[in-house]
């Protein structure tokens, strides 16, 4: 069975072992951690009441959730810093973590030391950056005056006048301009700033400086920074000097950066060590957040696979005084997550199933059935040796790059190839290969009828799945008497029988037809009264959950819908045949075009385009149609998909 059994594991241990235990859990990996506090609060974390458990039981009274105590942020911060320095080239090495006895204290001090060394070199770079920034500012400032043919020292030492440069917004510049003639200063417009502000130079008599400043402040005049006494020459000469200095500093900076990189490379091993240890402790802190703590003990809960039970017990045995308990899914320990287990052929199709929903823990995993039928339908509709191989190749490449749907595509491509041999088609050409079965276009009726037959088989399988799923959940009403239960299946079969008899597919029409009709009527009746019937059999009262009249109106419509559904669901599968025909027809159209142009090169071009077109567009359509059959015609019958996915440790805790 493809849904793996999971069990709840509850652990109580002495607090001094908590770090080691958490590390084991982290390395064990295949476990879904649950908030222990929550488990305890909801009364599912149950310790057997025995004398030797007394301490642990008493601990329940003084529990604190790990959430409030643990803080992984400092670890994460350091880890991220290391990661940044090495531009993400450090990787978490699980193997070495499993081997060594990791020492948090040492890792922290190493990281600290490492950081201190960096500060020295970094500091120098930072100084240079600061200097460069100041120089750029001065450069911008003096650029506004670059047409001034006087020494700055002269300006600075004016006796009766002071000057200032500053910027105002465009709107305030307009205001300033309208008071040019009445303001007590000389105002020059010397340029515009990058942020759209206008720059003015204001020269005012020292006696009236205060008044000028008041007006400037009213206009939100912002002085330009970067002027300095150290520059005394004319602005042009100053700018040359500044540019030269910028150049020099940039050279030193690039040399320092090279040194820094060398330093980083030399210390890569140490850095990796620290990175590993700190990542581990970051993760352990997260694990511990899910634990609960009393003064002496820690409490931990999580879901594991049933088959991992012994491995877990072996781990637990290492710790003295550790109590480990397992509880089954059916002993009421919350809704267990669903862990899917499929072989390599089916596994990629789990993605498609999860698109609809994760199977519930007490439901059959539809993945194998979906995989087989999906591949079959796709191949049937898109049978071509060449195009199939192209799809398979594309899927293989995508799959290698980690695209899960690529793996699905690979399998679909192979199926397409198999059907290509059945139809004798390669890249659309039907002249090269001899068909193992038929050529779709030559025997249209056979193909369409075969499609319906395939549909019938698939629907019957879906009924079986539905019945098993419903009975597993002890739903007598739907499982036995429901439209997708045993009654539904029998009704569908008998209707098929009646049709078969009357079209002469099955002999003995005369005797069997009336019997089947009577059977069908009885079954319809059973479905109609399924609720009261089931409740009566289960000795449940009341018989109806709503009023009887409401129930029968509703049930009557459902019945109508069911009968219609049986017909439409079955006929829906004709599309499998139809698309098999379209596939051939589409290529034939292009082939005709290629012959009509009567030009070798263009013909080849058309045929190549035809293949690309068919692979891309028809491949997509067929893929969607086949999936539609699964989701709409089949899943709606038997599958609820309301489970919770099993998420092991490493999915939930990821530092990067």
């Amino acid at each position, binding site marked *: 069975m493809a849904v793996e059994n999971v069990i709840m594991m509850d652990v109580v241990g002495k607090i001094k072992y908590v770090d080691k235990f958490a590390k084991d859990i982290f390395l064990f990996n295949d476990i879904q951690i649950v908030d222990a506090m929550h488990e305890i609060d909801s009364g599912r974390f149950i310790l057997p009441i025995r004398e030797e458990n007394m301490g642990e039981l008493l601990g329940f009274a003084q529990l604190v959730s790990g959430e409030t105590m643990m803080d992984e942020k400092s670890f994460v911060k350091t880890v991220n810093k290391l990661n940044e320095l090495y531009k993400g080239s450090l990787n978490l090495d699980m193997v070495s973590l499993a081997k060594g006895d990791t020492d948090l204290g040492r890792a922290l001090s190493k990281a600290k030391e490492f950081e201190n060394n960096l500060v020295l070199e970094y500091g120098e770079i930072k100084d240079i950056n600061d200097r460069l920034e100041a120089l750029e500012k001065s450069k911008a400032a003096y650029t506004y005056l670059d047409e001034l043919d006087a020494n700055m020292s002269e300006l600075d030492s004016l006796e009766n006048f002071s000057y200032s440069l500053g910027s105002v917004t465009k709107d*305030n510049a307009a*205001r300033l301009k*309208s*008071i040019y003639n009445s303001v007590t200063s000389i105002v020059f417009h010397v340029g515009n700033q990058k942020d759209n502000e206008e720059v003015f130079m204001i020269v005012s008599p020292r006696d009236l400086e205060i008044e000028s400043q008041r*007006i400037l402040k*009213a206009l*939100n005049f912002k002085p330009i920074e970067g002027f300095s006494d150290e520059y005394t020459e004319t602005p042009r000469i100053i700018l040359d000097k500044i540019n030269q200095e910028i150049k020099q500093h940039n050279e030193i900076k690039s040399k320092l950066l090279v040194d820094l990189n060398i330093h980083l490379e030399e210390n890569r091993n140490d850095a990796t060590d620290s990175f590993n240890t700190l990542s581990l402790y970051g993760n352990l802190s997260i694990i511990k957040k899910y634990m609960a703590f009393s003064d002496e003990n820690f409490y931990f809960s999580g879901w594991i696979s049933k088959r991992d039970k012994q491995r877990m017990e072996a781990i637990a045995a290492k710790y003295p005084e550790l109590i480990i308990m397992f509880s089954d899914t059916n002993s009421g320990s919350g809704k267990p997550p669903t862990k899917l287990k499929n072989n390599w052929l089916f596994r990629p199709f789990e993605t498609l199933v999860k698109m609809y929903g994760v199977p519930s823990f007490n439901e059959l995993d539809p993945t194998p059935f979906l995989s087989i039928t999906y591949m079959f339908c796709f191949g049937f509709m898109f049978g071509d040796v060449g195009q199939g191989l192209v799809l398979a190749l594309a899927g293989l490449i995508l799959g290698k790059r980690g695209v899960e749907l690529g793996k699905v595509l690979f399998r679909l491509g192979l199926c397409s190839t198999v059907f290509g041999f059945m139809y004798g088609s390669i890249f659309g050409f039907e002249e090269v290969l001899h068909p193992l079965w038929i050529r779709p276009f030559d025997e249209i009726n056979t193909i369409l009828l075969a499609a319906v037959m395939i549909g019938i088989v698939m629907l019957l399988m879906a009924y079986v799945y539905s019945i098993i799923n419903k009975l597993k959940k002890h739903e007598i009403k739907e499982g036995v008497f429901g439209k997708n239960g045993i009654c539904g299946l029998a009704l569908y079969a008998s209707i098929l029988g009646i049709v078969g008899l009357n079209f002469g597919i099955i002999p003995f029409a005369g005797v069997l037809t009336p019997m089947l009709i009577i059977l069908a009527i009885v079954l319809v009746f059973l479905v109609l009264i399924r609720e009261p019937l089931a409740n009566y059999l289960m000795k449940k009262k009341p018989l109806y959950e709503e009023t009887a009249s409401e129930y029968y109106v509703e049930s009557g419509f459902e019945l109508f819908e069911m009968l219609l559904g049986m017909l439409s669901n079955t006929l829906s599968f004709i599309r499998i045949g139809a698309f098999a025909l379209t596939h051939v027809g589409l290529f034939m159209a292009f082939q005709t075009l290629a012959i009509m142009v009567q030009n070798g090169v263009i013909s080849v071009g058309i045929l190549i385009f035809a293949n690309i077109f068919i692979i891309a567009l028809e491949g997509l359509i067929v893929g969607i149609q086949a999936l539609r059959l699964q989701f709409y015609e089949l899943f709606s019958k038997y599958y609820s998909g309301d489970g919770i996915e099993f998420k092991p440790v490493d999915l939930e805790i990821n530092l990067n």
Partner: protein
Amino acid sequence: MSKSKHACISTKALAMRARKIQESDYLELIKAKDLKEVFLYLRDYTYFGDFLRKMDPENLHRTEIEAHLNDLKVQETEKLMHYLFGVEKNFFQVLLVRMEVESLRILIRGIARNDELEQLKGLMVYSEKYTKVPFGRLFRAKDWDEFKKLLIDTDYYRIFEIYKDIKGAQDLVMVEKNLDRYYYDLLKNRLVKLEKKSNRDLIDLERRNFDLLNLIWIYRGKKFYSLSREELIAYSLRGGLELNEKRLLSLVNAKNLVEIKAQLVNSDYAFLFNHTKTIDLFMERRRERYLYYQYLNLFGKSDSGLGRVVGYVRLLDFEIEDITSIIESKRYRMGPEETKKYLIRPID
């Protein structure tokens, strides 16, 4: 631009306007005995109700009620913005900036008074969706410097950065003036980007508002603050309709009220000064009542531009202001007749 472009949002504004409070509601509010009765009436009988439900009628703060009334304005403005894009949406966003500016003003005054900013939280009104101001962190600012630094990614930083301190009364007034000027410059700059033909009436009306504000500013600046001509110009608004730069300068140069009045004799704004004793007391209300009629007119005309929608928000503004005045009148125990004098909307 076709008429249908704004048909949808215009109809929306019409529908929203239909829910506005009526004269009878105003009368009830004026009649109310105290703050609590005003609150209960607003909560139970007007569409402001939803925004007041969370408040405790036994423990009411005047200013908090106002903030909640304004929350409705934020919500409705945001709602109307869904229908707009490009320059029109940009223009509309300025209406939200107004509230942001007011909220900042409250915080700045709090800093000047050394208040705990956290306590002012309930008075903040802004659009969470469109604001770039990190209000959540501003409350924790300990002093003016920290406050300024938090605004570094916003336009406001440029306004505040040259002020080293705002403890001095003069500085605080100037910072506030600066904020206002920033808002009106923004409004003007986005206003002129709107399509001229279809928004003629709207643009003219907004520009009239600039005129009125300038008049009041110059009048008061001269009378109460004795500011220099240059400062008066520095804080005047640009983009007025009748009062261009030249006329502004000559108003600034006027020696006294008589000269100002003489200059306005032939303008639409003579009404501001055609009174003997109550010029100062009702100046602001006269401006707003003038605008109220104009916006009502704009709202009624269904031109093809944004006029009706902006008119809607402006009218809502006046409505909230009137309710605020009524609330205040309870505090000063004013009689109904006295209260009515202070309302923008004329009520008989």
